[in-house]
């Protein structure tokens, strides 16, 4: 009942006119970001963070807007999957399988509408799951001590690559690099570390600059390298012919997809890609010969979309309750929280209850807004899709510059951003994942603080880190998370690849 009261308060926050307006703006921008090729959700949210700052938005408004962007990006990813056979982001890959064939058969509008409804249902189920699960998990997390938190952070890094991740060693390496960057600056004993006497480094490296550089600038360089500036011709979208019966027929599929996706989103190391993959595979198994999957079965569109939207809302559970994000985009949302001076984690549910529940309520409202936006406005998104990347990416880069510049008006930050971009390009070439670097940057100070507390209490005895049952449990999961990709990773990747045929 307590939860319900909080939720009602949350609606009170989310329904304030200006919050509602920013949620709508966020949902629109998010769909756009998700739909445009070359502008993934993590990238898009990262570019918008400095803008949210410079606008001087209230914490709750900023968070509501960017959560709406996040939800919108997941909706938008499907548009380019269906129309161009290019997934906007990785989880949208499975949507290509039946979405693109449907579009080729002249049923693009139906595919878009069905996937919008499925996304809505998937998100809705997962948001309800979030409302039920998050307070419980937050209460449980209050029992964590410093040692448990340290183990939890290790777990977050270990499972970040996901079960489908390629080389866990590179994930650890990336995490170490990120954590090392985070140690630059004056630490909390007042010692200068790795500042080399440069004044600008005393306060440490601003992770927003690093995130925007790593994502946005490296993306520009990748597009130049692939000579992909021309883009692809857009599909013509037919007039929508969809009856209620068609939508109702999708409901069981969407429902199953949403539940599976939510579970995949909450679990460490699974993530949205696996969510959509499992939902699609299960649906194919259940329907067996009755379906015509791979040739434009609408259920093949509904299942992965419900799955990936379910997973993306599910991924907010560990981010909000433990302060440990499980994906790139939730990591960027965490960056926003930290820069708003909100300490993520279980205490947030008591100390900043209005913000947390406002965001959750905004997620629910955002869902309805997205559904309303997506069905009638799909034509606008399709038009924008045909803007070739050679115009789009330079403009996006410029917006990133303006955002960073407007935070501090300093050229130093811009050089830093470009440097991070070039670094990001090389790291991506070497297949060093960027997300652990960002997570390292974000979690570094907290991780060190917890290590320090744990060791100080135990008087320098390192075994304190794995002395409680809970800590041992977390360490075990972390180790399993590192070893499992070696065993099942190749098999799973093979199957996902074999099915989608998109490959990259």
């Amino acid at each position, binding site marked *: 009942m307590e939860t319900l009261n909080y939720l009602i308060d949350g609606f009170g926050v989310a329904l304030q006119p200006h919050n509602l307006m920013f949620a709508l703006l966020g949902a629109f921008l998010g769909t756009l970001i998700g739909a445009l090729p070359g502008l993934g959700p993590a990238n898009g949210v990262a570019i918008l963070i400095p803008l949210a700052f*410079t*606008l001087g938005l209230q914490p709750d408004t900023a968070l509501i807007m960017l959560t709406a962007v996040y939800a919108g990006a997941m909706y938008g990813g499907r548009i380019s999957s269906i129309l161009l056979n290019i997934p906007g982001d990785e989880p949208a890959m499975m949507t290509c399988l039946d979405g693109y064939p449907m579009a080729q058969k002249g049923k693009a509008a139906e595919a878009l509408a069905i996937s919008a409804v499925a996304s809505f249902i998937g998100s809705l189920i997962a948001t309800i799951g979030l409302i039920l699960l998050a307070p419980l998990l937050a209460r449980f997390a209050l029992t964590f001590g410093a040692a448990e938190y340290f183990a939890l952070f290790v777990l977050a890094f270990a499972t970040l690559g996901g079960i489908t991740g*390629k*080389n866990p*060693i*590179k994930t*650890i*390496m990336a995490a*170490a*690099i990120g*954590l*090392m960057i985070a*140690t630059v600056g004056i*630490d909390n*004993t*007042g*010692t*200068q*570390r*790795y500042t080399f006497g440069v004044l600008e480094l005393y306060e440490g490296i601003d992770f927003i600059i690093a995130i925007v550089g790593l994502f946005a*600038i490296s993306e*520009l*360089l990748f*597009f*130049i*390298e692939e*000579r992909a*500036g*021309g883009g692809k011709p857009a599909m013509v979208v037919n007039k929508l012919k969809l009856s209620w019966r068609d939508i109702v027929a999708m409901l069981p599929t969407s429902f199953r997809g949403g539940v599976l996706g939510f579970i995949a989103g909450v679990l460490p190391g699974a993530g949205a890609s696996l969510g959509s993959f499992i939902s699609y595979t299960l649906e194919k198994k259940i329907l067996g010969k009755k379906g015509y999957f791979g040739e434009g079965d609408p259920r093949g569109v509904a299942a992965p979309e419900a799955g990936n939207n379910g997973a993306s809302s599910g991924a907010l559970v560990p981010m909000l309750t433990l302060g440990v994000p499980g994906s790139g985009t939730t990591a960027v949302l965490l960056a926003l929280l930290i820069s708003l001076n909100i300490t993520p984690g279980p205490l947030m549910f008591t100390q900043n209850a209005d913000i947390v529940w406002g965001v959750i309520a905004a997620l629910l409202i955002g869902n309805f807004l997205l559904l309303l936006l997506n069905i009638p406005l799909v034509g606008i998104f399709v038009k924008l899709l045909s803007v*070739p*990347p*050679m*115009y789009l*990416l*330079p*403009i996006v*880069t*410029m*917006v990133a*510059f*303006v955002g960073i*510049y*407007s935070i501090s008006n300093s*050229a130093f930050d*811009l*050089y830093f951003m*470009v440097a991070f*971009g*070039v670094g990001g*390009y090389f790291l991506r*070439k*070497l*297949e*060093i994942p960027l997300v652990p670097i960002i997570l390292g940057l974000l979690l570094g100070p907290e991780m*060190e603080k917890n*290590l*320090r507390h744990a060791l*100080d209490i135990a*008087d*320098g005895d390192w075994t304190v880190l794995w002395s409680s049952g809970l800590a041992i449990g977390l360490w075990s999961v972390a180790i399993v998370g590192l070893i499992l990709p070696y065993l099942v990773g190749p098999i799973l990747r093979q199957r996902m690849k074999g099915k989608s045929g998109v490959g990259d």
Partner: protein
Amino acid sequence: MALNDRVFGVLMLVLAVAYGWGATQFPEPFGGAESVGPETFPTVLAVVLALTSLYLIVKPDPDNAWPSGSLWLELIIAVVVLIAYTLLLQPLGFVIATTLAVGTLCWRMGAAVLRAYLTGLVAGVVVFLLFTYALDLPLPWGLLGVLETS
């Protein structure tokens, strides 16, 4: 060949050693040494990075193809444009610098010259007006400063 990972592994090993050595050079914090000082966490990180670098040197992944000569040039041009953009943002002002930077990038990515710079100009003017008047966040006027007072 799997040279990339090996080279990167060696570079990171050097970084790990330098970083670890750097940690031993921190002055002792005021109030004497504690069980956990400013050097503890960096030392752990240096060890982790050193171990993973060694692994990469021993067991590298196959290489990704690097861009060919002319593509390198394009990439370098792009980076130079970004640096020049930063450099010129204040003196030339936002609109002119943006026209040049966005225009050059569009052009190098394959747009026709005129359309490329026109895109830059329009984008620059729109963002400038939006920021200066709608959002109240002033961007540098630069050479166009004469217009400011009029």
